[in-house]
């Protein structure tokens, strides 16, 4: 019989320990063939081989692709469009490990967040259950213990850059049964509009919005300037404020500024893009709507 072999000397066995066998062939396309081994431990004192404890015996595996143009940092089609799943934890406290693997050149991040199992458009620090940290090339991992049962979380697989389409594998392991359900992008197939504009020395820039029938929409403001300004978005009708991004101005360098709501057909809405001070000159607005949405620049 022919064999491929390797030998390892351990000076002082860390007892107990787990020996992991690796076998891989980068030149062959998966699936790889089953491989057969014999492993012998030689020692001058008694040694015992057994099965390691399979602490995270439940596994859910998802394969997918990031479409071209989807990334963490892109101002056009951003975080919200990254693949997301609803994670359902059963009736017991869970220990969870999530592994995300992409191409070798892709910087990736995996995050589990509280969100009632809904698709996340942005990520606030207080919502993060666990996260793999800085975007890392090829693969990322994150884990959490004592994850509350009967709670729904969202798992997000994101990448840093938006170059070509890229494949990924997400593996979620747990000590109890968990379920992963893909969260479809709510705005998939809906109308999108991207407008670039500037404040032109003023602090408010206005846009007129019009729809012919009841339409749900969202608009996200991003900065095209080197120094992102503090901003605020609000939607008015007849000089009355209907929706806003909050009373405070949002630091575009740290957070996303976005509003969403429903528009009635026949009404004339005014979207005010406000900035604090003189920072930032150019900005971009990304509109998403489930119907036809007319956007016109106001005559300021």
């Amino acid at each position, binding site marked *: *019989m*022919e*064999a*491929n*072999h*390797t*030998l*390892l*000397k*351990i000076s*002082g*066995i*860390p*007892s*107990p*320990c*787990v*020996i*992991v*066998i*690796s*076998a*891989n*062939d980068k*030149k*062959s396309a*998966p*699936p*790889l*063939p*089953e*491989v*057969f*081994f*014999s*492993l*012998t*431990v*030689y*020692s*001058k*004192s*008694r*040694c015992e*081989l057994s*099965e*390691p*404890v*399979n*602490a*995270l015996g439940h596994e859910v595996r998802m394969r997918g692709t990031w479409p071209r143009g989807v990334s963490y940092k892109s101002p056009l089609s951003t975080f919200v469009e990254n693949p997301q799943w609803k994670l359902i934890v059963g009736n017991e406290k869970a220990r969870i*490990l999530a*592994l995300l*693997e992409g191409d070798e050149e892709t910087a990736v991040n995996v995050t589990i967040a509280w969100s009632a199992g809904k698709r996340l458009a942005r990520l606030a620090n207080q919502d993060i259950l666990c996260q793999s940290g800085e975007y890392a090339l*090829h*693969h990322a*991992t994150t884990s959490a213990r004592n994850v509350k049962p009967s709670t729904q979380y969202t798992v997000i697989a994101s990448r840093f850059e938006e170059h070509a389409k890229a494949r990924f*594998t997400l*593996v979620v*392991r747990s000590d109890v049964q968990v379920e992963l359900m893909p969260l479809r992008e709510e705005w998939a197939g809906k109308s999108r509009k991207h407008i670039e504009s500037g404040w032109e020395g003023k602090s408010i820039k206005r846009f007129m919005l019009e729809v012919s029938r009841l339409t749900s929409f969202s608009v996200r403001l991003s900065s095209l300037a080197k120094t992102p300004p503090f901003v605020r978005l609000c939607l008015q009708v007849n000089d009355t404020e209907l929706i806003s991004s909050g009373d405070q101005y949002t630091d575009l360098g740290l957070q996303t500024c976005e509003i969403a709501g429903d528009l009635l057909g026949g009404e004339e809405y005014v979207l005010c893009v406000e900035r604090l001070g003189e920072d930032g000159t150019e900005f971009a607005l990304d509109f998403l709507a489930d119907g036809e949405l007319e956007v016109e620049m106001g005559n300021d």
Partner: protein
Amino acid sequence: MVKGMKVQLRNPWSQGGVPSEATRDAGTFWLDFRALCQRFKTLYLNWNPAIFEYSSTKHFSFTPNGSDFDIGSNAQISLKGSGDAWILLQRHYLGKAEGWEGYIGISVFPGTERIYTYSRPVYRVFSMKAMLI
């Protein structure tokens, strides 16, 4: 390797024809280790496993998933013992048609639980190319 170490070699074919007991010492010569490494690609060493009082063997198989990172489904074995140990891993070829050009390896992690991601083993060794014995 010790600097200046020399290795004695024998060329069994130095006299021409089939080597025999009568020509056992013919064709022997000394070579320093650096020169040996420059001239030969592979060095096979014999060793005697009987010098170890204890040994334990497991036979197993698994199907690699193609990832060096997601190793939860790789074959794993728990070891309890003390002192020094030598771990010999042999891959069995069932047929030459497999066309395997990859590597095999052993990594050792402290603890009793199965390892799911590749991170900081205390020991590891990889055989990069199939060496047939």
